[in-house]
């Protein structure tokens, strides 16, 4: 290295200053790509984490999430029978902030300017993005205007779950529990069937109610997943199962549901506890930003980029591929999306055959659980996912006590992979 003495240094300094005055060097801020992830559920949290795990300091990732904590719907039916509390299912974003240097903003997205790639939040502040990931989940379609604080859905975990639990605790022997199952697709396909089993088991075997009934009104023509598991369980619990139900009215004051079946119109059930799980669609922001095709967001799952707007990616329950809507596969989609964004940003070709997988353990009592699983692969001819043919999916496992234990091994690692 050439060494200079102090006098030469001072000369150098003054020359530089002169040089600057005559010909200013054009300098540009070292801006690194901005990726904004909206929604801190299983999909959004996983995507943000893996973007930083794989992209590191070459990118800046911001999560916009209204709540400081996330409450997992996975395992939340176990709050109803007292095996878990909401606190057990509550996660924070400290690891995202501390370990992965993700900016956390607890505000709500109001609007998306797709042309200028600018987001406006509920306090009027703005954020710019180069890549936007929307993991904003579901919204409900209510048949009429009723109060979900009287007729809870408990399909977003937290207060709603506690509310349903409190209502169940007011039941005495002879009171009925009536619940509905939405038209597919909806979040967590086995979830409502699981709930019917958990509540029936709780009332019968823990509360000792011999005269209370659980009645299931299913919008679908039949049990849509794990049919053997759930139909056997329904028989053993004495659950009354009514398929092909179209709900026409819900009355909060009297806790009455009015519905049609294929054979009869204007049937009614009135129950001590009425748990209507409404039909579902993408969250409102997807519709406001015109990123939907029908009820769901239209994406190409080689990357989960919108087929409607460049630079916007949609993962999790709001995306409209054939994949189920659930936390495990939302986590799975998020990694494919994170990798695709990083490849695109670095001018690299996308991986041509991404695979995702779905897995779910369903408790059906305080000691037994079943499982359901599938592997999906990308099909470039239809630009959609399809079940991998070699696996003859979906596959399921019958209820057992070992599966009940495995359920917690599964959820522990799923939670870790998403939030830690």
């Amino acid at each position, binding site marked *: 290295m050439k060494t200079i003495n102090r006098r030469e240094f001072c000369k150098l300094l003054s020359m530089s200053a002169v040089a600057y005055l005559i010909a200013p060097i054009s300098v540009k801020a*070292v801006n690194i790509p901005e990726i904004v992830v909206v929604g801190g559920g299983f999909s959004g949290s996983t995507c943000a984490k893996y973007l930083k795990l794989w992209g*590191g300091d*070459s990118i800046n990732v911001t999560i916009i999430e209204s709540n400081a904590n996330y409450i997992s719907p996975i395992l939340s039916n176990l709050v109803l029978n007292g095996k878990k509390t909401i606190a057990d299912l509550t996660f924070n974003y400290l690891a995202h902030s501390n370990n992965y240097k993700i900016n956390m903003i607890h505000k709500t997205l109001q609007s998306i300017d797709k042309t200028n790639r600018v987001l406006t939040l509920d306090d009027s502040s703005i954020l*710019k993005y180069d890549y936007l990931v929307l993991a904003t989940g579901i919204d409900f379609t209510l048949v009429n205007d009723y109060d979900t604080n009287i007729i809870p859905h408990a399909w977003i975990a937290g207060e709603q779950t506690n509310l349903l639990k409190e209502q169940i605790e007011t039941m005495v022997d002879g009171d009925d529990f009536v619940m509905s199952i939405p038209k597919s697709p909806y979040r967590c396909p086995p979830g409502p069937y699981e709930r019917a089993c958990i509540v029936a088991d709780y009332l019968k075997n823990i509360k000792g109610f011999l005269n209370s009934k659980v009645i299931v009104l299913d919008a679908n023509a039949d049990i849509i997943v794990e049919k053997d598991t759930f139909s056997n369980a329904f028989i053993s619990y004495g659950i009354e199962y009514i398929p092909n139900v179209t709900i026409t009215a819900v009355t909060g004051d009297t806790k009455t549901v009015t519905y049609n079946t294929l054979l009869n119109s204007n049937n009614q059930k009135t129950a001590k506890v009425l748990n209507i799980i409404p039909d579902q669609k993408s969250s409102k922001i997807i519709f406001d930003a015109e990123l939907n095709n029908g009820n769901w967001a239209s994406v190409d799952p080689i990357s989960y980029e919108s087929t409607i707007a460049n630079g916007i990616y949609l993962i999790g329950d709001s995306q409209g591929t054939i994949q189920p809507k659930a936390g495990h596969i939302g986590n799975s989609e998020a990694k494919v999306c994170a990798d695709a964004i990083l490849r695109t940003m670095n001018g690299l070709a996308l991986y041509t055959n991404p695979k995702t*997988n779905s897995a779910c353990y369903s408790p059906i009592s305080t000691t037994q659980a079943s499982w359901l699983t599938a592997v999906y692969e990308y099909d470039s001819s239809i630009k959609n996912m399809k079940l991998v043919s*070699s*696996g003859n999916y979906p596959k399921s496992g019958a209820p057992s006590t070992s599966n009940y234990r495995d359920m917690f091994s599964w959820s522990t*690692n799923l939670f870790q992979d998403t939030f830690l």
Partner: protein
Amino acid sequence: MKKRIMISLTSLLAGIFFVGCGGGDSSTLVDGEETIPSTYTISGTVPGTIIEAYCSDGSYYSTTSNDNGTTKHPFFLLIPENRDCKLVMITNETDSNPANWIITPIEFEVNSSLGTYLSIDKDIDLGNVPLETPGANSWTSGVKTPLTITLSDKKVHIKSLRNDPMDTDNDGIPNTYEDDDNDGNVNKYDADSHNDNDSDHDGIEDIYDTDDDNDGVMDNTSNTGTITLTTNFTLNDGRLLGSQCAQCHGTNGRSSSNWDSIAREDGLYHEMREDGGIMYEQALGYTQNEVSTIETWLNNQ
């Protein structure tokens, strides 16, 4: 127009102005897993100053320069390695009223690029920083437009963020030195400026702020600095495919539950099929080639 100075950084110059800068401690293991990051020194000379660092994890570091009887007081500020920090320098800091201070945010120019954050993995010397100060030709109190320090060391890491939580309006002045309620007092020293979620007004919400009162003492270090992030994305098909194992077997194949860790697993293809139940069914969804690609990646975890 922002002020601009040119400072040449050489080991020789460091030698002219200072003797030994310290820092550079090697990593220490605590409880076998948590690594305390090494610290390094930012040094230079200033005309009598508080030197502050506001870092992106909310941590805060500060020092004052040493009066050596000249107009160039040396300073040494210790910062943990690889932490993105903004620097602010304050002169006339002996005045009891912060409204009379001269507060200068610092920007960095490296390779003709500008950065508002600096992160260091070695000692660096900023040289002499020509801040406004009482007694100099002209000075006014208040928050200045950022002063750009040009670093000739091309290996210094700098960056700017367009979505900068610590400088929301992107004007180069950190949030803590903005005057959000326009009462003449900067947020940091404004008794009536309050934001319940951000006590020190640095833009990092208290729950994510490792030092939410900026007292220089970390509130909770248990979860900080345990992961070193990569600097660049590298292509890896095995990692993409293998990340799909993590829902059940943990990130990078390291399990937190009773289920197996699969990092550095050998004979993966057979292992997946040996176990019955859900693992066997999952195994049917992957080709031998795919599993071998995953195994190669897992062997490096």
